[in-house]
């Protein structure tokens, strides 16, 4: 190799090629080109920032824990949420099972314990109909979480589709579609929800009798219908705003010029780029849905008896507030914990995925 180095230059100013540049790279040189870290996608970058946020991670852990409890515990729990412990076929109703204090047992249970049997304790006692309160709270939390998730998904789908169509096509279509959104947005949602729940209960009842939907209950269905009718508007507005601004980018023009269909442009270019806004507002939609559901259940318009929800449990506890205050406190803490965790997680997501919005 040395002889190449020593090769004299014919002319110091000439364009003679330096042969050294065409040698094979040494291992050391190759090592410099190795990418030390993997490339960061937008999503992973956000997740990295989220992981650093201690409050958000704590909330996420709490929520995962709650989700695990409400899915796994009912499988192994010896009582069900609707089982009235004092009621047995062919026997008189055993009143001793009603209104048990925490960790107390009913009469027949005490006999069985005396005989050496092991009986799972009623951790939170039983309610006025002799149902184990612990499982009712767990099941109630499950219902509340499910309502939150499903409502958020409904809002997500309708809002994203509506918002992206309106934003992409613009012009008269946009104007017309946004007028509808404006009107729905200014309707007092809670009042309309109450109104629709009252009526839907009456109207749906005979229609779904005997079908699989009957188990879900008319109240739950009407909650979802109402969410589908009213709550998507803010999501639609957000998505439209995002799409309007992203639409101005050159790569959209490029995509159009090679003949991509509108649907493809929306799906491949516009929506992935507005993902952060969609993620954040979906996360914040869940606690607001849980809020609404518990509120309606408290008014007696939520889930139907004997299915519990955290709101209806709190509402039922109100009549026995003097004797059994813990029956109010337990669901109250559960609602508070769930909503608080979702709120803080949503804030964390906003900080992580939308640095521009960071306060």
């Amino acid at each position, binding site marked *: 190799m040395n002889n190449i180095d020593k090769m004299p230059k014919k002319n110091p100013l000439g364009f003679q090629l330096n042969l050294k540049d065409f040698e094979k790279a040494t291992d050391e040189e190759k090592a410099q080109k190795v990418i030390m870290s993997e490339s960061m996608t937008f999503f992973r970058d956000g997740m990295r920032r989220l992981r650093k946020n201690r409050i958000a991670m704590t909330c996420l852990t709490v929520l995962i824990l709650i989700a695990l409890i409400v899915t796994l515990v009912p499988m192994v729990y010896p009582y069900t949420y609707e089982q009235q412990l004092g009621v047995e076929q062919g026997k008189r109703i055993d009143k001793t099972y009603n209104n048990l204090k925490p960790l107390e047992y009913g009469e027949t249970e005490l006999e069985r314990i005396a005989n050496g049997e092991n009986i799972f304790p009623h951790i939170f006692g039983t309610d006025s109909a002799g149902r184990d309160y612990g499982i009712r709270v767990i099941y109630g939390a499950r219902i509340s979480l499910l309502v939150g998730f499903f409502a958020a998904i409904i809002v997500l789908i309708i809002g994203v589709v509506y918002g992206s169509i309106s934003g992409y096509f613009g012009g008269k279509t946009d104007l017309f579609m946004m007028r509808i959104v404006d009107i729905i947005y200014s309707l007092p949602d809670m009042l309309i929800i109450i109104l629709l729940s*009252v009526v839907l209960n009456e109207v749906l009842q005979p229609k779904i009798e005997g079908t699989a939907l009957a188990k879900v209950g008319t109240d739950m269905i009407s909650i979802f219908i109402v969410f589908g009718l009213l709550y998507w508007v803010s999501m639609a507005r957000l998505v439209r705003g995002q799409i309007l601004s992203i639409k101005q980018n050159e790569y959209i023009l490029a995509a159009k010029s090679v003949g991509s269909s509108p649907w493809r442009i929306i799906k491949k270019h516009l929506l992935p780029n507005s993902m952060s806004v969609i993620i954040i507002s979906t996360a914040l939609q869940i606690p607001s849905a849980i809020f609404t559901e518990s509120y309606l259940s*408290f008014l007696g318009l939520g889930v139907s008896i004997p299915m519990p929800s955290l709101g209806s449990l709190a509402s039922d506890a109100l009549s026995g507030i003097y004797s059994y205050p813990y029956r109010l406190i337990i669901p109250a803490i559960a*609602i508070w914990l769930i909503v608080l965790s979702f709120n803080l997680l949503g804030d964390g997501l906003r900080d992580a995925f939308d640095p521009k919005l960071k306060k």
Partner: protein
Amino acid sequence: MDSKLALYIVKRLTLAVVTIFLIITITFFVMHQVPGGPFLSEKAPSPAVTAALEAKYGLDKPKSEQYTTYLKGILKGDFGPSIKQRGRDVTTVIMKGFEVSMRLGGTAAVIALTLGLILGSLAAIFHNSIIDKIIMVVTTGLVAMPSFIVATLLLLFFCVWLGIFPANGNEPGGLILPIISLSLYPMSYTTRLTRSSMLDVLSQDYIRTARAKGVKPSKVLFKHALRNAVTPVVTYAGPMIAYIVTGSLVVEKIFAVPGLGKEFVSSIINRDYTMIMGTTIFLGTLIIIMMLVSDILYKVFDPRIELG
């Protein structure tokens, strides 16, 4: 007032009128979906009684005619008779309940705004201090609590365990707890809003200029900073009223306050359809007007905002 603002006000007014009209229409037609019509109870009366009832309430006429009659009645402030409370008409019940609810909700709104502005400014002035942290932790906790949870817990602590306040809204001092339960959430929200906008304003150049010129800190705070920080709070006034209205439904039920909220809830339970219709329309109109006022005030206060 410039023409752009006038145009905006006209636009918002039109939208408000359309929305109120829509609420009346939705309420009417949704309620008439109820099997047997809104005026009939579950028990089927004899055909003669049914016919007489239908004739009395005009139910034998076509829907469109009933609708125009109802609409005309509302314009005159007449929501028709209550079907469950004999001999009372909906308008009287609403007006009687509204008086109580006004006092309750109005006080709660004033307290929420005042305390929220004070606490929010304090948190911003002593940014990152222990005061700021305490205020933030408490308000974060309170924002996650639905009004009925706050109300029931207050009832438990102060009426059941401590026995300081009466649990009944009719007794003297009975309105204190309902007011607190209604104002805690909006207060927390206002506090957080004021804090963030105050922090924003305090870092502006003109505040530094004022301080550099030797203006007293208190004057800088009240005259320069707070005035500008208050604008976002104005936008919250509308949604706050909406929150207080819906919150008062449950809070009044819990504390047995004889207001409009309690009437509404009991009319839901009794399926008193004309009451539900009347109250929904009344409260809906109230919320829309409040939203309209707060939106317009916002634009008047801060002319920099682009009119949409």
